[in-house]
């Protein structure tokens, strides 16, 4: 798994590549927690290159979502591949997270007022 990080007009963007599983999800957790520790208001995670995610990956995102909400931050996940989206659906998390089909719509979600 690789994590590429960049900023775009106040949005912290993480692009994850590869599989997110039990063995590497702690690395993802650490990277997200760096942003959470800085109380980043707008975090976008691109998942277009993630082919697989297991429950530990979902747990990482659930934890990140809870922590960002605590300081009124916003977290958006974009471009989920069908296999990844189905895992979110099984856990009934597709309605809990802000999911966007494209990077642009994800950025719009974060930049729209409210």
């Amino acid at each position: 798994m690789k994590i590429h990080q960049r900023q775009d007009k106040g949005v912290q963007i993480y692009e994850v590549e590869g599989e997110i599983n039990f063995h590497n999800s702690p690395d993802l957790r650490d990277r997200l927690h760096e942003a959470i520790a800085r109380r980043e208001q707008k975090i976008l995670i691109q998942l277009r290159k993630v082919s697989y995610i297991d429950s530990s990956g979902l747990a990482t995102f659930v934890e990140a979502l809870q922590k960002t909400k605590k300081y009124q931050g916003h977290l958006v996940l974009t471009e989920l591949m069908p296999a990844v989206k189905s895992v979110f659906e099984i856990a009934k998390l597709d309605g809990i997270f802000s999911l966007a089909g494209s990077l642009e719509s994800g950025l719009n979600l974060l930049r729209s007022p409210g």
Partner: protein
Amino acid sequence: MNEKKQFDLLCESGAISRFRTALKELLIRSELDEKKLHEVTLAVDEALANVARHGYKGEAGRIQVEVADCEDRIEILIRDFGKFFDPTSIPSPELPPSKPGGLGIYFMKTVMDGVVYRRGKKNANELILVKRKQA
């Protein structure tokens, strides 16, 4: 039965990753559709993560996996020699989850047609996962 294969691996990330690749190749040969192939891979991964987390607690213990490609189903037996752990006894989590964790066993039960735990020889933990080829 079309094919039966046994894998012996250590409970560590490199070995599990290589096993996952071999499992996918076997499942492709079994003519499971893509959705079911993904579901079986997910369930096996969750089972192995449980062995790592609860059975061996991070130690690189031995795991044996037997994959049987039968006419109408795929049967996978996962055997470990770690601490006693029956994942089927864990209650299903609240959904959507309000806290991280606890989803692995729910995934296994949801995507597979059968999940059975038994105590094997030499006190091994044995988890049997069954997936029917047709809905």
